């Protein structure tokens, strides 16, 4: 048992675990809107855009959160605005903007080639890459996102369920769409240090998809997805240490296992007559 608790003696692990729990919860919360709006591909694309910002930032000597944050927010808002015009579908805009960002990052690294090792952590995640400053930054992001979601809960729900009706009722749907994009960019930004750009979309989608299988109500799905995300993030980080695999892979595989379990549970529940309301 002492081996199980061993990593808690290391500050780098405690930092990584804290960020994994916070980022998992953050992705679970924001992922609910991502899944229900059919924006999973956007989450995947934004992680690549944020990588581009981080890479360019490292080349010009700007910190990760500033460079990746500004780049990610700008990419998210550009995607949202262009897609709203309706000439191009959102997935086409995502494909152009995010891959261009990713390519810009790769080109900058290839040309100037600085800080490459640190950016590997951004791509694939690393326990060692998490500092005390990351804990504070992700904590601030998480608290901010929770407060914003709580304050705009009803309007966000309305705009997600039926944007046209919400607009008719007086909701500022375009602003709420922009807000959702900003929340998504912040979630990606806070998560990439631990999970890595390649697997961020799993952290966004898996908790929400899992919880959707277990409830037919929005409020419980939002809370449940947040809890599932936090648990998978924390336990995945523990598994990462003990199995000596990258945290992104451990968290993603654990999430996939939980999703399979939820699928089985839902199938069993649906096969029973008079399924109780969830």
């Amino acid at each position, binding site marked *: 048992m002492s081996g199980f608790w061993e990593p808690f003696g290391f500050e780098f692990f405690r930092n990584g675990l804290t960020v994994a729990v916070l980022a998992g919860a953050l992705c679970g919360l924001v992922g609910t809107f991502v899944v*229900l709006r059919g924006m999973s591909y956007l989450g995947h694309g934004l992680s690549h855009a944020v990588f581009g910002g981080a890479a360019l930032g490292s080349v010009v000597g700007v910190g990760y959160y500033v460079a990746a944050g500004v780049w990610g927010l700008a990419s998210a808002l550009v995607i949202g605005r262009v897609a709203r015009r*309706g*000439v191009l579908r959102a997935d086409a805009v995502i494909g152009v903007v995010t891959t261009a960002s990713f390519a810009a990052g790769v080109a900058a690294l290839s040309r100037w080639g600085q800080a490459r090792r640190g950016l590997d952590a951004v791509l694939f995640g690393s326990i060692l890459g998490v500092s005390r400053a990351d804990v504070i930054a992700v904590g601030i992001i998480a608290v901010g996102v929770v407060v914003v*979601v*709580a*304050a705009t*809960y*009803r309007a966000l*729900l*309305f705009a997600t*369920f*039926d944007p*046209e*009706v*919400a*607009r*008719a*009722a*007086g*909701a500022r749907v375009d602003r709420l769409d922009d807000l959702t994009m900003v929340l998504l960019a912040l979630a990606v930004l806070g998560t990439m240090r631990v999970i890595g750009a390649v697997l961020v979309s799993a952290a966004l989608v898996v908790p929400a998809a899992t919880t*959707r299988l277990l*409830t*037919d*109500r*929005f*409020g419980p*799905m939002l809370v449940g997805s947040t809890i599932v995300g936090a648990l998978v993030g924390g336990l995945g980080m523990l598994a990462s240490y003990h199995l000596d695999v990258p945290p992104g892979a451990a968290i993603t595989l654990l999430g996939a296992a939980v999703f399979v379990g939820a699928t089985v549970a839902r199938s069993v529940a649906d096969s029973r007559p008079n399924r109780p*309301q969830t």
Partner: protein
Amino acid sequence: MSALVELAGVVHRYPGAPAAAVTVLEDVDLIVEPGAFTGIVGPSGSGKTTLLRLVTGALEPVAGSVARREGLRIGYVPQVETVDWSFPVSVGEVALMGRPPAHRWPWSTPAEKRAVADVLQRLGIPGLERRHIGDLSGGQQQRVFVARALLSGAELLVLDEPTSGVDVRTRHDLLHLLADVNRTDGMAVLLSTHDLNGLAAHLPHLVALNRRVIAAGPPSEVFVPSVLEATFGAPMEVLVHGGLPLVVDGPGSAHPLHTHAHALPPHDLDPTRAERPR
């Protein structure tokens, strides 16, 4: 402005190559006064849904103007086919969507819960707050959307083909419900329908639409063969049965009812009477 919504010279086309762009509405005028109860009738593709979407603000006209009274709140009941019934949301959550939150937290207050229970009771669907919206019948789902409009304080209720795909009893109940909401709450009602006998004939004011406004007024002025033929592109005959107009296809199909047919008395139309035995 005293009117809730005022459309003047509205033209709308859907995007496409200039030569291929389809003109859906041309030079349409429409005024929706407070407390109005208006039905828009016309065949499929006549622009009914487009007109409603212009009224709600979901679309902007290509030419002409749409003026809404400042701060106007509109409750919109979309066609049931356009709603994502798998969305994880309960009846209670839907009912409260359009209501400004009583506090800054996401959960509803006891007073809000009581308001939901009261309005569901009034609309004949008591105790369904925790049920998933997709588990309800079509008629119950429409009532939930009407409940949402009532709880949001809407002054105008817009319904798109509310009797499409519902049975006679549900249509009858819905008409009574709308008449009650119009009379008791003073909420203006604007709906589209191609159900001439089951719904439109019971309304006090109609607009016959086929790209243009063909005629507007009480059914006695709209349900005349020349207007109906211009609107629907097929010969129609109007009989009166039980005090209500009855539209039948072509002159030859009406023989069995000729013995009861007589001229339509305009004053005999009242939405609160709903359906009479035939």
